[in-house]
């Protein structure tokens, strides 16, 4: 579905990376590995069409990504390194807003189950600003489940998580793959998750 061909990016006349090739088909997990500053986030941004590649091109479903952007955005969820939940509102409000905004077809029972497995069900009426960093990170994954899209693009999803949560992530990833979904994620450590493709930046 998603094919990246000979991608090179320069910022401020400085080469960040060169000749990246990547192809993502349903059921695949791709990991981007590299040190800090090696351009993992930059590559993810280029895939989201936020950055203009200096050379090379990206294709989505056989068409150039730029020509097919709307369809691509309909199939993709991005989780960056920030907390996208609204800090002033409670978890419940956040869930409500997302559910309506994403026009999600996930029902309340499924959300409850997800909340329970993420161990967030006790904090429903707590403001997001009072949660710990790891808990807000988990809330991000709740969004992942609620958006219910095919392609997941995750920036450093495993940092700041405890062992239990990483185990949970593994489980979620495998579930998603078995439902013909595909995942790209970046990491600076070895996650111990089964991946189909590994790209070293």
């Amino acid at each position, binding site marked *: 579905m998603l094919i990246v061909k000979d991608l090179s990016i320069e910022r401020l006349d400085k080469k960040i990376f060169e000749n990246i090739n990547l192809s993502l088909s349903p059921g695949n997990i791709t990991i981007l590995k590299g040190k800090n500053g090696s351009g993992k986030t930059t590559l993810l*941004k280029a895939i*989201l069409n*936020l*950055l203009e590649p200096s050379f090379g091109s990206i294709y989505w479903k056989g068409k150039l990504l730029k020509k097919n952007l*709307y369809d691509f*955005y*309909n199939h*993709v*969820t*991005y989780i*960056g390194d*920030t*907390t*996208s*939940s*609204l*800090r*002033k*509102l409670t978890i419940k*409000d956040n869930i409500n*807003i997302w559910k*309506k*905004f*994403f*026009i999600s077809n996930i029902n309340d029972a499924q959300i409850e189950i997800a909340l329970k497995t993420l161990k967030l069900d006790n904090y429903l009426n707590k403001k997001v600003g009072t949660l710990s960093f790891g808990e807000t990170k988990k809330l991000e994954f709740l969004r992942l489940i609620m958006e219910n899209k095919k392609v997941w693009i995750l920036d450093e999803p495993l940092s700041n998580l405890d062992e239990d949560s990483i185990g949970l992530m593994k489980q979620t990833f495998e579930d998603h793959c078995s439902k013909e979904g595909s995942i790209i994620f970046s990491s600076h450590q070895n996650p111990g998750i089964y991946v189909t493709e590994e790209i070293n930046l």
Partner: protein
Amino acid sequence: MNFLNKIIFFYYREYKLNMSGIQDILTNIIFFFISIFIFIFSIGPDKETISLIGVGILWTLLLLSSTLSLRKFYQDDFENGNLLIIHLNGFSFGFISILKTFSHFLFVQVPFLLSIPIACILLNIANDKLFYLFASFSIGSLILSCLGSISSSMNLMNQRNFLLGSVIVMIFSVPVIIFSVGIINMEESFNSLINILFGILLIVFAINPWASGLCLKLSLENS
């Protein structure tokens, strides 16, 4: 239909956000009123003088207090990544800026609009001028919202000197002030002056999605 729903829930989200931080809006209004008090005390008790320069004071303070909240225009959504999430849900950056502009108008400027009658009593402005004041301010504040959108999107990546954003809004609002104060002082040419204001509104409204959209994209690219 999906798209319309998304717009509605965009505003639902803005409503929730603004209601949870309603003290910010109220602080703006309090700033506005305290400035009026200070003006009255510093000018002295002469009612004639106050009502003579009252309209000018009102406009100046409205401009200043609406630039106070500019920092929050895009900054929060930009820093927590919601801007990107909204974009990925099928809104172009230009469209986001239009939605945000209206949201700023609704939740920041309309409270000022509602508090104008009280301010008029304090400043001893005649009741028959209230209509002109309302007409000019409802158009003028939309212009200020558009300008605010442009300047705050320009200054998203500017961590050092945020006051620059206010300066940009103020320099481009000079014609707005000239014409809207003119409306109140020259009631006989109300029609042509309100048309000029409306023309300015159309121009900034047309520029807004392009300029803000470009700046938003630029900031997201390079953050």
